[in-house]
């Protein structure tokens, strides 16, 4: 079994999941898009949020970026600061 990927949750994604952090098991060389597919299966309410972005190590990541278990991953729902 691989090490899990740690995913930080913020804003509405945290409320929907009910936790501020998830440990997600993914196959080696999984990509950002694969992570979202798994999360949508495990937490179907997340699929209702349009345009969730993913940050990897504090940078916005493309859907095809490959994830490592040592990455800090975060779900970024639509921002509303300011």
């Amino acid at each position: 079994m691989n090490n899990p990927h740690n995913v930080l949750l913020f804003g509405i994604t945290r409320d929907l999941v009910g936790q501020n952090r998830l440990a997600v098991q993914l196959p080696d060389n999984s990509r950002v898009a694969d992570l979202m597919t798994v999360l949508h299966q495990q937490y179907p309410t997340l699929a209702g949020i349009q345009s969730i972005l993913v940050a990897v190590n504090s940078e916005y990541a493309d859907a095809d970026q490959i994830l490592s278990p040592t990455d800090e991953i975060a779900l970024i729902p639509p921002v509303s600061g300011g």
Partner: protein
Amino acid sequence: MIFLTEDPIDINAAYGHIQTGEAGAINFFFGVVRNNTQDKAVELLDYEAYGPMAVREMQKIADEACRRWPVLKYVIIHRTGTLHIGEMAVLIGVSTPHRGDSFEATRYIIDTIKQTVPIWKKEQFDDGAVWVQPTP
């Protein structure tokens, strides 16, 4: 100077930070908690940030502003935590030699913060709470 803080924002300290002998113009923008949104009475607002990434994204925005305009100094301060009506949620300040640049750089910074910086606010009404959706 860029930071997130749970404490009230000190305008005079921010002004002092960006004032410089070469500055002929200083623009400040303050985002303030309003008492209503779409005709519903707001009681308070909770601001949540993904701190390290928020500071990085604000730094990118400030760097881009410095590339586009002759910015002398800038300050960006964003509150987190629970804010009440009338409290300042964000302060942007920019000093430039001439006035037009100070307006444009400040506006660019606040507009872009609202698009890219991982900060979220939740409005608390008397009958519930909602995460604010971005406005164009």
